[in-house]
């Protein structure tokens, strides 16, 4: 009888197997090929039932494809967000598995920092359907199916009506509405704010039933929610307050309290400090660029030492409030003395390069380059990057990308003598791979070296000036080779915002 094992298979597919049954299932599948095929068929039936929207009166129809394109484009972000969310409590009786809810959802949580919702007033994992939500902690970034981005900071209470209407009962929201999604409306007590293709911020005070609108770009129409009567059109740079039934222009808007997509990135960055300080001894240099007289190493195994700042000035980094060092003169640098020997070395940095105006530009290079073991990480005039050490011959296999200028990017690279290879990444994507021949010298000893510059006493050197033109706001050094997964995690932890991640990777 071909379906004699179906009961066991359903328990497996529905997550109800006991330990004994797990063993029985494994033994069965190990020895019985027909059982394997039957299980695959039952999995297909179960998944097919989940996927198809089945209406007895209309026969079977294909699932709606409405969400597919943007769902795919956001998938990377969703995976990242999912990792922050705790799974829901297991119900007292297992639900028949429904992997993709068929009820419509209008927005996805694409980014968050420290988000917490009131019981019963949160999303289904990352999906926001029609309904009421209460954000008690953190900041969230939602993307609607029409491409509208909204960022909210706790405390906030709101209801999602559909993909073009939010009712904001209390809280602050920043909205970015792309072309084609005009008409997106945020309803507040007694007034509707209808977008005409723009970027704007709204603050609602639930108790006072008042609201404030700031138009950052474009136009927003304020309307009477009952009659749809146009009360006022507010344009770029203008602000208005609705209170006691009146709309009053506001002269000095305070935009600092509004969350933006980038503010989530900054919150996440602030929380990541513990990630680095909890690393093993392999992390020998962690420089978060706090504004201090020295570039202080916060690693728990700080054998790379602190950096001495010469000339480089403290400026704003990836986010307002985050500090960076600006290198824009030929004598700006940070100097280190790393005397240990290494078989493997990796470095990663968040960097914003203004321009490549020299034959070579240094990220991190040993002084003089006269001793075997000296280390280098530098960029060419053409925006290509290379890493290696004195004594290790490299044979480039691929070098496909050019480093973009004028934007924050994540660069990382690893040199492994045991693995005989050099790997370099831009924003988590491997952009260069080189074979390494360590036969003439098999240790790396950076010694005295400079970040953002290079020093040499060799008067015959043709490319003496290798000063960086740009900013650095984070730097890390490992005595190991970084894996692709680790590089991905570094990018994820430090990404400016989910919008940056979508456009940069």
């Amino acid at each position, binding site marked *: 009888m*071909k*379906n004699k094992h*179906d009961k066991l298979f*359903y328990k*497996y*597919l*529905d*997550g109800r*197997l006991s330990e004994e049954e797990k063993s029985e*299932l*494994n033994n069965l*599948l*190990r020895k019985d090929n027909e059982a*394997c095929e*039957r*299980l*695959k*068929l*039952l*999995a*297909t*039936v*179960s*998944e*097919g*039932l989940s*996927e*198809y*929207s*089945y*209406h*007895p009166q209309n*026969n*079977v129809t294909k*699932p709606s*494809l409405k969400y*597919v394109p943007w*769902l*795919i*484009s956001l*998938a*990377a972000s*969703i*995976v990242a967000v*999912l990792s922050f969310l705790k*799974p829901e409590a297991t*119900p*007292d*009786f*297992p*639900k*028949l*598995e*429904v*992997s*993709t*809810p*068929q*009820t419509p959802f209008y927005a996805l949580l694409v980014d968050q920092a420290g988000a917490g919702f009131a019981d019963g007033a949160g999303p289904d*994992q990352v999906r926001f359907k029609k309904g009421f939500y209460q954000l008690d902690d953190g900041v969230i970034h939602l993307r609607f199916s029409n491409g509208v981005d909204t960022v909210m900071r706790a405390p906030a209470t709101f209801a999602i009506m559909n993909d073009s209407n939010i009712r904001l009962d209390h809280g602050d929201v920043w909205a970015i509405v792309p072309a084609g999604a005009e008409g997106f409306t945020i309803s507040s007590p007694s007034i509707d704010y209808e977008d005409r293709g723009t970027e704007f911020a709204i603050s609602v005070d639930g108790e006072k039933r008042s609201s404030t609108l700031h138009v950052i770009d474009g136009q927003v129409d304020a309307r009477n929610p009952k009659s749809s009567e146009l009360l006022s059109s507010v344009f770029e740079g203008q602000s208005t307050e609705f209170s006691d039934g009146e709309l009053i222009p506001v002269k000095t808007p305070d935009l600092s309290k509004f969350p933006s997509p980038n503010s989530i990135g900054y919150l996440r960055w602030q929380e990541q400090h513990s990630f680095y300080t909890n690393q093993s001894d392999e992390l020998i240099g962690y420089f978060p660029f706090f504004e201090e007289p020295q570039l202080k190493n916060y690693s728990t195994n700080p054998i790379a030492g602190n950096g001495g700042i010469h000339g480089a000035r403290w400026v704003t980094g990836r986010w307002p409030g985050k500090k960076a060092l600006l290198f824009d003169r030929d004598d700006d640098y940070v100097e280190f003395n790393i005397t240990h020997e290494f078989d493997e070395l990796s470095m990663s940095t968040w960097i914003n390069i203004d321009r490549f105006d020299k034959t070579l530009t240094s990220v991190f290079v040993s002084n003089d380059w006269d001793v075997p073991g000296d280390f280098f990480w530098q960029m060419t005039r053409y925006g290509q990057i290379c890493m290696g050490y004195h004594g290790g011959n490299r044979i480039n296999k691929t070098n496909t990308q050019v480093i973009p200028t004028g934007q924050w990017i994540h660069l990382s690279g690893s040199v492994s003598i045991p693995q005989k290879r050099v790997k370099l990444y831009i924003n988590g994507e491997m952009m260069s791979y080189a074979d390494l021949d360590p036969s003439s010298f098999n240790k790396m000893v950076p010694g005295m070296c400079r970040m953002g510059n290079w020093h040499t006493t060799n008067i015959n050197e043709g490319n003496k000036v290798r000063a960086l033109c740009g900013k650095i706001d984070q730097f890390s050094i490992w005595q190991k080779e970084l894996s692709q997964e680790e590089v991905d995690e570094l990018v994820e932890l430090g990404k400016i915002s989910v919008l940056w991640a979508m456009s940069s990777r």
Partner: protein
Amino acid sequence: MSDELNTDPRGAFPRLWAKHDPGIRAFVRASLPDPHDLAEVMQNVSVIAWKKFSDLEDAETGFGPWVSVIARYEILKFRRSKARDRLVLDEDVAEKLLDEPSDSFSTRSEWLLCLSTCLKKLKKDHQSLLQEAYASDMSIKKLAEQRKRKPNAVYQTLSRLRSVLADCIEKEMSMKGAQ
């Protein structure tokens, strides 16, 4: 290659993904029944497929099997990232399930097509029960309350209906093979 693929290769991706999504899900589901695991792997698969889509030469006919290869790799990668006690299937059994002949994807697509036919053959009441169980977020417990039945009885009925559908699909496939 179609005009769409020639002029806008990335534009064809959503259409092809939507077309093959149920088959890919079914493939992953057999190895990872937990819905959260399934969702995570599917999301990883979609991102990788999106990134590498331009490498695929014959997208119209090769998309499904190609994504299945990505899915196989992602399932194994996902399993490695999980604690052993969280995994139901042993390593060798999981690999056995994932090692499929090259035409398996089209077989699975055929199964899904037959499922449409077989669903129509069910009684209206059974169709309605399946619809409520699968096309909403309703738990078995709530479904049972609505129907004034015990949860286990509803679960057994749903299990039996799945077996009926599977048997029907096998029959449909054998009839197709005989034609």
